[in-house]
């Protein structure tokens, strides 16, 4: 069975972003870009399913600008068998990405689609659920454990209050939470091998998908900074401050 993994190119999670002073966006000039950390977990899970013999082919898909090719090469260096870039310079919102992925799901017919639960740039947490809805597939979001057998995926999910387990018929959409696995690093030989793996480039128009944004961003600004308060010398002073000054205990 095929697994399709969606990969987003985002600002590296160690970068401290800044809003532009004129409110027009986030300053991305010269900023390090990386694979969205949740998508690394999604790819790792697909690789483990392949190593267990459950999955036969792992396809990495990214939607966005030409530079996403680098992110797909990284995915293939980790082990994806091939890559597909849906290339566009238009700002892509989750609904548009879900429609593009739906078109590729129709074409590739994967048994599993694995995505990160959210991207660390827009923090939307939508694309997997939207894809599942558009494709008429069951979903298990926020996965912390995945088992695939007999045409079903049994997925444990991180939910408010604890853990929940669902059984989905395949094909299905899974989105990954932090504790599903620990992603591997690419090795040098695999980085070299990835250069020769197939990377297909398609356009939204070729897939027949309207990607026009539905939301316009009017302004991006930094929230009011919280300033550091005071250091207290000991526990007694702390308690006195909390009682008499902050009045919270």
């Amino acid at each position, binding site marked *: 069975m095929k697994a399709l993994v969606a990969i987003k190119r985002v600002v590296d*999670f160690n970068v401290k*972003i800044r809003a532009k002073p004129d409110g027009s966006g*986030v300053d991305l000039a010269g900023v390090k870009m990386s694979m969205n950390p*949740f998508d690394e977990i999604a790819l790792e899970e697909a690789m483990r399913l392949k190593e267990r013999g459950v999955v036969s082919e792992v396809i990495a898909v990214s939607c966005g600008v030409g530079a996403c090719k680098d992110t797909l090469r990284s995915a293939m260096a980790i082990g994806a068998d091939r890559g597909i870039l849906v290339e566009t310079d238009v700002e892509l*919102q989750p*609904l548009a990405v879900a429609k593009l992925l739906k078109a590729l799901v129709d074409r590739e017919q994967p048994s599993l689609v694995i995505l990160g639960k*959210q991207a*660390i*740039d*827009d*923090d939307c*947490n*939508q694309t997997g*659920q*939207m894809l599942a*809805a*558009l494709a008429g*597939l*069951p*979903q298990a*979001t926020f996965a*912390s454990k995945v088992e695939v057998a007999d045409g079903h995926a049994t997925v444990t999910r*991180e*939910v*408010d*209050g*604890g*853990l*929940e*387990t*669902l*059984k*989905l*018929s395949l094909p*299905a959409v899974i989105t990954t939470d*932090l*504790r599903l696995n620990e992603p591997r690093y690419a090795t040098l030989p695999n980085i070299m091998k990835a250069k020769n793996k197939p990377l297909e480039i398609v356009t939204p128009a070729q897939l027949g998908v309207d990607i026009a944004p*539905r*939301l*316009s*961003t*009017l302004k*991006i600004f*930094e*929230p009011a900074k*919280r300033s*550091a*308060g*005071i*250091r207290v010398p*000991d*526990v*007694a002073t*702390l*308690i006195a*401050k*909390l009682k008499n000054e*902050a009045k*919270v*205990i």
Partner: protein
Amino acid sequence: MTTRKVLVVAEHDHVSMKTATRNAVTAALACGDEVHVLVAGYNASEAAQAAARVVGVSKVLHADAPSLAEGLAENLAAQVLALASPYGYILFPATSSGKNVAPRVAALLDVAQISDVVRVVSSDTFERPIYAGNAIATVQSSDPVKVITVRPTGFDAALAEGGVASIDSVEAVADSGLSAFVERVVAKSDRPELAGARIVVSGGRALGSSEKFLDVLSPLADKLGAALGASRAAVDAGYAPNDWQVGQTGKIVAPQLYIACGISGAIQHQAGMKDSRVIVAINKDPDAPIFEIADYGLEADLFDAVPQLVAAL
């Protein structure tokens, strides 16, 4: 012209409302002028009655069937869609359930979904945090229906008692057959719910083990009537359960008092707690980033300071 009717999809346990539902009702009143609440569940009439008593709600729609017992996304989204046509806004609390279902509803209505709204600017314009709360985006929707998840800490909870909404029974959707519930493992606790607690005592990797995490922090939480939270590092290390995680991808909390014990304060952690009214940091590293946002910083070994705190309270 979009209709100003708002549907809030309740989060509940079939008996009572989750507080986050009442935060969403407040956001709903900022969006429109008529607020209805959908209670989709199984044997959930007590929850429907609780929803009808929430101040500001004019009607409760109550769908009741085994297919709605476990909040499966496929069924719940179908239930919302079956009722969606009169509404200009469909709001979910931004809880694990709301986040699971809202995007399905939006996609099937062919509209954008707006995540984690913290402020309603106007009928079509909203503020939401991006980049782990390091920036706020003001976004305007051109869609006829606005499907929104409401970050609970952005809105005060509507009053739980005093409303007199009518309750309409509505037809429940059939089971999709796509997914099935297997089990739920929920930690039982007498402590308040983390997301809505007035005081949160939170621990980091410095605690060193799950035993020490509980031995050191529970007495303090018990004394203060606080919920327990944890940093991602503590959860990843297995010292605390996953649903205690406070941060960008865990719980977003804004209690009156947040006490961070042995938490360095990565950006991703701060994203989950920096809107707390008063922040206390106890850490032996004088350079820990948590001190940059703490109202009261105590540079001390938590294994000394926390027991002293418990003894003195």
